[in-house]
Each structure stands twice: as structure tokens, then as C-alpha cells.
């Protein structure tokens, strides 16, 4: 069933609320992921091996994050709004970093604001989850992590079971509506992450969403 594979996945959870960290940690561990929790965006960047000013000046050779980062992080799940870093600031920093931009980022928020959701997705978030996050919400995470694993193993064998995304989402978001409408791939491909994991006879991993995004 692929459960052994799940424990290879390491999720970094970022939230300034101690209760939310506790809950998300339990949710993730119950889903068989390895978890690290931090309470701020800057600690998240530190854990990822990125100093806050990396990636801004392309002329400065940034210290190779791989020297600092001992653990591979397969997904970052973060609260939208935390003190100390502007809204979706962590998301932007990750996506602007040459070394980190392929790490899938999922945003959590207690507020269902359509413009916020769209903005996060446009900035490169894979998913937007409404708090309080449920166990069933976490099923959405796996396809994103699998996709990056496939990429890093250079298109080796397809994983056997990627699982269909859950039918009921719970709140309307531009991302979900797009999936249901089966948009052609030329549109914002990241939003279609979920529906990529369907056909087992694909001969190459469909990474259009990542490679075409500049």
C-alpha cells in the first residue's frame, strides 16, 4: 500500500500556535510522515538551510544549503499569517530560492478568503487548507511529495499507487474548481497537481507544473 514509502517523507510544519503545532504534528505522524515543527518562518528557513537573505542577490554565491541541511524536507506546511514574517513571506522565500523552490509548500489558514487563496496558489503554493486541518485534508499532501521524489530519482519507475484525490473538498477554491473542470495543461499547471496522479501508464513523470514555471 506504500505505507513504508510514506515514512520516508519528511514534512516541516510551521505555526506560531503551540496548539496547532501539536495537532498538526499528530496529524502528520498519524499519516506516517516524519515531522519537524518550528514556530516561525525564520526558523523554518534556518532548518531548510537557507539564510534569510539568500536568493535575493544572484551575484552573491549563496552558501550551499546542502551543507547545512542534513535532512531532506519533502514538503513544508505553514500557517499563512505569523508574526515576524509577512503573510506568505515564507512561501515566497522558498519559491525564490534556487535550492528550495521545488519543495512543495502548503498553506494553512483559519480564514477562508478567496483572494488570499488565489494569491497563495499564484505564489506557488500547492494547496491551501482551511483550519482546523483534518486528517482527511492531509491525503492531499502525498501526491505533491511523490512528485518531487519522482523528479529527484530522475523519472525512474512510477510509484504503484498514487491514490485518487478525495472527492469532497469542503470549501470552494479556485484550485479545486479547476480540477473539476479538467482544464487543459496549458493553464496554471501547479493547480492540477492533484489530477496528475491518475494514469499509471505514463512513461514520464508529468512535471510540467514545475519546469515551466519560471
Amino acid at each position, binding site marked *: 500500500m506504500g505505507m513504508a514509502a510514506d515514512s520516508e517523507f519528511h514534512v516541516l510544519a510551521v505555526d506560531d*500556535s*503551540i*496548539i*496547532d503545532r*501539536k*495537532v498538526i504534528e*499528530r*496529524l502528520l505522524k*498519524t499519516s506516517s510522515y516524519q515531522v519537524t515543527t518550528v514556530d516561525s518562518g525564520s526558523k523554518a528557513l534556518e532548518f531548510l538551510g537557507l539564510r534569510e537573505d539568500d536568493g535575493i542577490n544572484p551575484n552573491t554565491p549563496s552558501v550551499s544549503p546542502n551543507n547545512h541541511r542534513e535532512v531532506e524536507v519533502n514538503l513544508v506546511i505553514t500557517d499563512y499569517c505569523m*508574526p515576524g514574517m509577512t503573510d506568505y513571506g515564507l512561501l515566497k522565500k522558498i519559491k525564490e530560492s534556487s535550492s528550495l523552490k521545488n519543495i512543495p509548500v502548503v498553506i494553512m489558514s*483559519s480564514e477562508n478568503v478567496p483572494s488570499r487563496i488565489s494569491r497563495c496558489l499564484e505564489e506557488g503554493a500547492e494547496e491551501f487548507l482551511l*483550519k*482546523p486541518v*483534518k*486528517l482527511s485534508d492531509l491525503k492531499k499532501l502525498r501526491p505533491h511529495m511523490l512528485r518531487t521524489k519522482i523528479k529527484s530519482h530522475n523519472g525512474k519507475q512510477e510509484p504503484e499507487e498514487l491514490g485518487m484525490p478525495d472527492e469532497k473538498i469542503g470549501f470552494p477554491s479556485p484550485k479545486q474548481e479547476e480540477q473539476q473542470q479538467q482544464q487543459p495543461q496549458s493553464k496554471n499547471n501547479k493547480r492540477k497537481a492533484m489530477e496528475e496522479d491518475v494514469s499509471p501508464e505514463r512513461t514520464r513523470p508529468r512535471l510540467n507544473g514545475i519546469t515551466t514555471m519560471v
Partner: protein
Amino acid sequence: MNQMAIAALKNQYKSFVQSMFDEGVLDNQFSQLQDLQDSSNPNFVDEVITLFCNDAERIITEMNRYLNYQNVDFSKLDSHVHQLKGSSSSIGAHRLKLACVNLRQASYERNKEECVEAFNSIRHEYCLLRSKFQFLMQIERRIVALENNQQ
């Protein structure tokens, strides 16, 4: 005999939680948390409750402080309410969450009098919730004690 006592306590726990659902004190999110508790994490609910109460009391104390100033810093107040609302939502403290929404509204309107009223409501809901949580945790601990005695 212990088996019967344990069963009776478990029923008591279940009924009491149900009454909290019925009264709207708790919502489905609390069930989600209960579902996350298992033999490998037998104290999860207790731990979350404890974290929540400590955090809530800290925030309520802060809010009280802000409201006692002549000139209320509504934006600081709001950020505290936002935190408490978030925690309440995460633990399933439904009525407390609603009380937070009211305080956010009053704070947004910069109406000190209404803020004080809304804050009192928060304090009331929190005290009610805390005493019910304490009761639950007492039952839980008795169950654990009896179960440990059997080993």
C-alpha cells in the same frame, strides 16, 4: 470488579463529552482530536487540553490588561483575540470561538464598552470550558489508574 468500574467510567466520560457537544461547548473538531488518540499516544487529548488552557489563560490575562488601559490598543487586542480564536477552533471549543468572534467585531468597531462585554463573555465561556475539561481529565485519570492496576 475493576472491569465494571472502568466501563462505567468510560461511559461517564462519553456521556459528558456528548453533553458538551449538545450544549455547543464543543464541536466536531474535538472528535477529530479524540480520533487521533491511540495506544501509542494515549495522552494526546489531555496534552492538547493542557496546552490549550495554559495558552488561553495567558491570552485572557493579556487581553484583560489591554482593556484596563484608558486608551485601548485595539490592534494589539485584536491580535490576541485572533490567537485565542485560532486555538479555540483547533481544539473544538465552539462557544468560546464564537465569543472571540464577538470581541473581534467589537474591537474592529473600536467600541470599548462592547469589547469589555465581549471579553467578559469570553472569560465566562473559558471558565465553563475549563471546569468541564478538568472534570473530563479527572475521569480519564481514574480510568488510567484502574487500567494500570490491572497490569
